[in-house]
């Protein structure tokens, strides 16, 4: 059964009815329901288009977190060939919340790194819901060093609620690991491109997304704090997440206007989870065009352009 978000309730009802009719017809061959069911399909499509036309920031957060949204693993499987996963930070552990390794994008050798949230209860727990510990950032640092040494472009896929707030993570230097990963992003002399595929959660996202080019999927979000966290601090009420999501300006459109994201990747109607193949295809062409725009740049220019891009941010704001 499909997973519906709370605001998709009208859609769930119609799609449910159509499904019910068809199920009934399967039991009873004399029933002809196809026409009626098709009418319901059309109605459902209308509702879907309508619901997704003007999404509030909070609804975008919900879509960005949709459990059936394609995750890092799905993108890696579809976009790259010869993927060789590489494990470990050579220090303490292998963090399953971060996937990384060698791969080919087309025939081009690259290094790919991303947060993986998992797709069922078991894998979500293994992946710690995409919340990395210091080992995850240190693995990323190691892979970026490897890419830099062998002149391979780095592609990062960002999808994390944030860095893991745990006891061990703090003891082993979560802050230092994030700071060093961001620093590494700014040091490597190879193209670094980043796609926010779902949630860009705070420092945990910055550590991978301090890139030459940043693209955001249409319904992805990128924020300094979760709307719930912001609401509980500023409104003293976590239930005010809708207002907080509004105020934080975390949508792809807003980040594009601020110059933080360079490109918005369109999603299929109803979000990436309704047609993962189409979404993944759109990401593929975005990566191809970002890579080709950086292709002939010298290492020192890649570094200095990346730094300048970030120094310049904030020169213009957003209107209310």
């Amino acid at each position, binding site marked *: 059964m499909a997973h519906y978000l709370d605001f998709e309730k009208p859609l769930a009802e119609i799609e449910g009815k159509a499904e019910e009719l068809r199920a009934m017809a399967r039991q009873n061959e004399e029933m002809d329901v196809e026409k009626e069911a098709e009418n319901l399909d059309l109605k459902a499509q209308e509702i879907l288009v309508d619901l997704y036309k003007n999404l509030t920031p909070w609804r975008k957060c919900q879509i960005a977190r949709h459990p059936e949204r394609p995750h890092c693993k799905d993108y890696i499987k579809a976009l790259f060939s010869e993927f060789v996963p590489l494990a470990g930070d050579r220090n303490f552990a292998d963090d399953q919340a971060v996937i990384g390794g060698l791969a080919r994008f087309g025939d081009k050798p690259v290094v790919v790194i991303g947060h993986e949230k998992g797709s069922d209860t078991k894998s979500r727990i293994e992946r710690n819901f995409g919340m990395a510990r210091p080992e995850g950032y240190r693995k990323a640092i190691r892979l970026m060093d490897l890419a830099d040494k062998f002149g391979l472009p780095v592609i990062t896929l960002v999808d994390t609620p944030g*860095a*893991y*707030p*745990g*006891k061990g*993570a*703090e*003891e*082993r*230097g*979560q*802050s*230092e690991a*994030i*700071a*060093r990963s*961001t*620093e590494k*992003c*700014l*040091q490597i002399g190879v193209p670094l491109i980043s796609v926010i595929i779902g949630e860009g959660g*705070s*420092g945990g996202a*910055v*550590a991978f997304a*301090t890139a030459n080019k940043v693209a955001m999927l249409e319904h992805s979000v*990128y*924020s*300094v*704090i979760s709307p719930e966290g*912001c609401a509980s*601090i*500023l*409104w003293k009420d976590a239930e005010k997440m809708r*207002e*907080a999501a*509004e*105020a*934080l*300006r*975390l949508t792809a459109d*807003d*980040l594009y206007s*601020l110059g*933080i994201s360079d490109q918005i990747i369109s999603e299929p109607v109803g979000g990436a989870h309704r047609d993962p193949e189409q979404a993944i295809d759109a990401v593929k062409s975005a990566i191809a065009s970002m890579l080709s725009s950086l292709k002939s740049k010298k290492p020192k220019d890649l570094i200095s352009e990346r*730094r300048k891009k*970030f*120094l310049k*941010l*904030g*020169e*213009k*704001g*957003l*209107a*209310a």
Partner: protein
Amino acid sequence: MPISPRDRFANLFDGGIFVEIDVPKPIIDPLQFKDQKKYPERMKSAQKTTGEAEAMLLAEGEMGRTPVVIAAQDFSFMGGSMGMYVGNAIIRAAERAVELKRPLILFSAAGGARMQEGILSLMQMPRTTVAIQMLKEAKLPYVVVLTHPTTGGVTASYAMLGDIHIAEPNALICFAGPRVIEQTIREKLPEGFQRAEYLLDHGMLDRVTSRLEMRDELITIIRILSNSSPQIKGDLPSPKQET
């Protein structure tokens, strides 16, 4: 006990003499942030209570006759939070240190990023990291003094990228605050968790130093790192009278 950046400067610089460094002003309220109180109003009331323009103060001067640039974050100004202004301040401090070929000493104190600047506050993590790289490339010492409290995006960027990390005793230093962790793991945290001494034990700091000894220690470290002669303790002999 909290101490204002201005008092800190008065205690650190020789004879309490220092020159403030101007910080390029960012746009006010870049996102037109709306919560229960308007952001510009929160700013105004913080300016009124602290008498400062923003949450970081920069100064240049001499400490034990050692020329330095010092940046100090002001926790009493909206929790010391890091927005565009603090980002601009750190970039300016690094530029000034490079211009003058001086070490930068930074006193951190912040709850983290300034939520009212949303994603732009988050972007101060990479921006300040670029600033620290300027110092690194110029081979200038960058010493961080972590004071109570230093948390969130501040700890996860410039505060953890120092050549030397010194903390004031018992300062809370962390990425995620103890309350958030307790809610996540549903267990009580041990006594002293995330305090300076705990971080020292876990290898995240070089030293924990009391405020009384801080100035001398900073002078010693900086003079060694910049390959200068040992500091002269006590008063210098008075200049010879012309005859």
